[in-house]
């Protein structure tokens, strides 16, 4: 059994509280950037972003651009781990086209509701959002050509469990493309065990 720094369930509840706010009140101030200004900062293709409605972009709170090292291929089957209000899923949908498929996985009801209603508004029949955890995704073995994620794995207590699960849902030779934060200076052990610092 891996010695985890924090309790996974307690951390999930903290994350839900934080991202419930990002879903419902995307224009209030957070310790991170959000929305279109963040997408521009992270060098997304703004022609694609500008074509999306505000509802699809305003709750975006990623930390990097998972499409910057490799674009998706037409027809790819994609899983978006921690899809939030769906921003990266919609970017993925624009790259894989109608013959592709995108499944977003999230654990926050408010984010799932927002993502689903935006997908319906956009008429994106090839995008769906499922309730689930990064460690136990409701996806068949080897289903995905690509797994994307943005700013989510750092918020998971057991990162090895997440990577094992991503490997399970990817086909052999499939791609993992994710963005996340990393620190260049060591964080004190007591801070690593302070659950409030994980989301704040």
């Amino acid at each position, binding site marked *: 059994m891996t010695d985890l720094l924090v309790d996974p369930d307690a951390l999930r509840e903290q994350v839900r509280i934080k991202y419930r706010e990002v879903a419902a009140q995307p224009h209030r101030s957070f310790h991170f950037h959000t929305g279109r200004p963040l997408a521009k*900062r992270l060098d997304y293709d703004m022609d694609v972003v500008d074509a999306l409605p505000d509802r699809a972009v305003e709750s975006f709170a990623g930390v990097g*651009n998972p499409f910057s090292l*490799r674009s998706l291929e037409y027809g790819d089957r994609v899983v978006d781990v921690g899809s939030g209000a769906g921003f990266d899923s919609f970017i993925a949908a624009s790259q894989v086209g109608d013959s592709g498929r995108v499944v977003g996985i999230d654990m926050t009801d408010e984010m799932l509701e927002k993502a689903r209603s935006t997908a319906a508004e956009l008429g994106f029949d090839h995008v769906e959002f499922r309730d689930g955890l990064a460690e136990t995704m409701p996806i068949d073995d080897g289903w995905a050509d690509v797994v994307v994620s943005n700013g989510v794995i750092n918020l998971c207590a057991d990162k090895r469990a997440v*990577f094992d699960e991503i490997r399970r849902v990817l086909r052999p030779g499939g791609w*993992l*493309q994710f*963005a996340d934060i*990393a620190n*260049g200076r060591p964080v004190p052990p007591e801070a690593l065990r302070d659950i409030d610092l994980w989301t704040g």
Partner: protein
Amino acid sequence: MLEEAGFVDVRIGPPVDTFGGASGEDKARAYEVYGYAFMARRA
């Protein structure tokens, strides 16, 4: 950890100043926290 989990061809993109200008900037600077894009292929 990615290689231990069965991934190969790991690539990491350049750092991005994710928190610059946000209220979390001071904490990010203290620990040199930046955003990165990662890419790897399932073996």
